[in-house]
């Protein structure tokens, strides 16, 4: 197998595994037939066509919620990394362009109920899935849209501007990534995990109001309480510059030991929610606030889960490519 063939096979990883099983060898043969003599890399046009077609197939295969959630998870990863890079860029730009932060804060702000509503819509779609026979693609694509909405609106949080979006983000990320890579038998468990985390969020919400004896029912007071649900706290405040470290560490952990990342992530997310913020109303134990590293670990582990499952979803199940050399390494294994 030459380098060109290996590179074509890597590009074909954009297709769903079922498609690759059936078509990969055939397509590679034709691609090699049309290649110019001496060609070692796919042309930009070819690569674009292959990746675009592969992603189209993946979207089409979102006929079940698992596939839609998987794609949503990949979308989330891309947006999350973009937001983290944005946050890092802002921290670098702040000395020379002090107004950039305030401008983005306005652009990325959104009412607090938007991410919760999006999460509720997603759960409702998942719950309604069995009754949507023949329209399952609606569920899959809707999940992608909803998650993209959460991520875009939550970008303010990732950039260090707002606090509210991390909770639905974490819930959805766990659900999406578990769905992306979990065996079919585990998908019910994945759904239960995601729904459970969302339920925990709801309990947290109810718990806050149950303990607030001074709430007079006004929306303003409601907002004040919600705005205190911080996933950082006064001891450790996550600044934009930290996100780059978090993202890099999450990527490395996800690539290195995705299963460990999944296990720890599933445990850490509810723990972080319990240890959340100065109110800690749901846990009722102010000492829990000392565990300030846990909020930071949410996205670290969330990203680790994401990378791990995305890697599994995209790269695994490629029997035709097993044992082939890495296309971007030379024969000695160097990049």
């Amino acid at each position: 197998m030459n380098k060109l063939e290996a590179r074509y096979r890597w590009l074909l990883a954009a297709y769903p595994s079922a498609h690759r099983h059936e078509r990969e060898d055939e397509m590679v043969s034709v691609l090699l037939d049309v290649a110019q003599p001496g060609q070692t890399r796919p042309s930009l046009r070819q690569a674009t066509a292959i990746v675009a077609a592969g992603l189209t197939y993946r979207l089409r295969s979102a006929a079940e919620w698992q596939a839609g959630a998987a794609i949503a998870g990949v979308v989330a990863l891309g947006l999350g990394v973009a937001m983290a890079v944005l946050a890092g860029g802002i921290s670098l730009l702040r000395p020379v362009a002090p107004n950039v932060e305030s401008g983005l804060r306005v652009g990325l702000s959104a009412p607090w109920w938007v991410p919760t509503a999006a999460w509720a819509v997603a759960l409702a779609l998942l719950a309604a899935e069995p009754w949507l026979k023949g329209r399952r693609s609606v569920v899959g694509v809707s999940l992608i849209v909803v998650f993209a909405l959460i991520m875009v609106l939550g970008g303010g949080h990732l950039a260090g501007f707002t606090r509210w979006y991390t909770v639905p983000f974490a819930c959805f990320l766990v659900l999406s990534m578990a769905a992306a890579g979990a065996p079919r038998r585990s998908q019910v468990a994945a759904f239960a995990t995601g729904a459970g985390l969302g339920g925990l969020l709801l309990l947290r919400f109810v718990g806050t109001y149950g303990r607030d004896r001074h709430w007079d029912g006004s929306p303003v007071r409601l907002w004040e309480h919600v705005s205190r649900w911080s996933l950082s706290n006064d001891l450790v405040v996550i600044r934009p510059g930290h996100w780059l470290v978090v993202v890099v560490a999450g990527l490395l952990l996800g690539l290195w030991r995705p299963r460990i990342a999944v296990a720890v992530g599933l445990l850490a997310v509810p723990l972080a929610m319990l240890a959340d913020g100065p109110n800690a109303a749901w846990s009722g134990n102010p000492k829990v606030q000392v565990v300030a590293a846990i909020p930071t670990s949410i996205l670290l582990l969330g990203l680790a889960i994401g990378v791990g499952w995305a890697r599994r979803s995209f790269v695994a199940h490629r029997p035709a490519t097993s044992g082939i050399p890495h296309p971007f390494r030379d024969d000695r294994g160097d990049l």
Partner: protein
Amino acid sequence: MPAASPAWRSRSSSKCVYFRFVSINELSFLVLTSLAEEPRHGYAILGDIAALTDGRMEPQVATLYRTLDRLAADGQIVEHSTEVVAGRFRRSYRLTDRGVSDLRAEAAQRSATLKVASVRLRRPNVGLAGGAA
């Protein structure tokens, strides 16, 4: 025993009423035309399309396979044979009865449109009101 149709090919345009009234697109038409002569594999289809169009159309391999998948999902083509030639996997396709009838209908429609276009182009003042008078 044939396996259940995978999700990625479950979108059969024939199930959609809208698509029944839409003409076959150009690439599909060319693929069907190519296979009307004999069963062909992907590379041979590409070569035949280039010959049919004097090199005007050189679809990407990924685009060709999207078309093949769609035609197969619509029941217009089926797999004819598979073989390995010089280390390369070849799967050839052939038209089904439905593919033949769809191609025939499409060719008739295009031929009729072509005749009308030819007649109109022979008239004076092409494209101007009253040119048909």
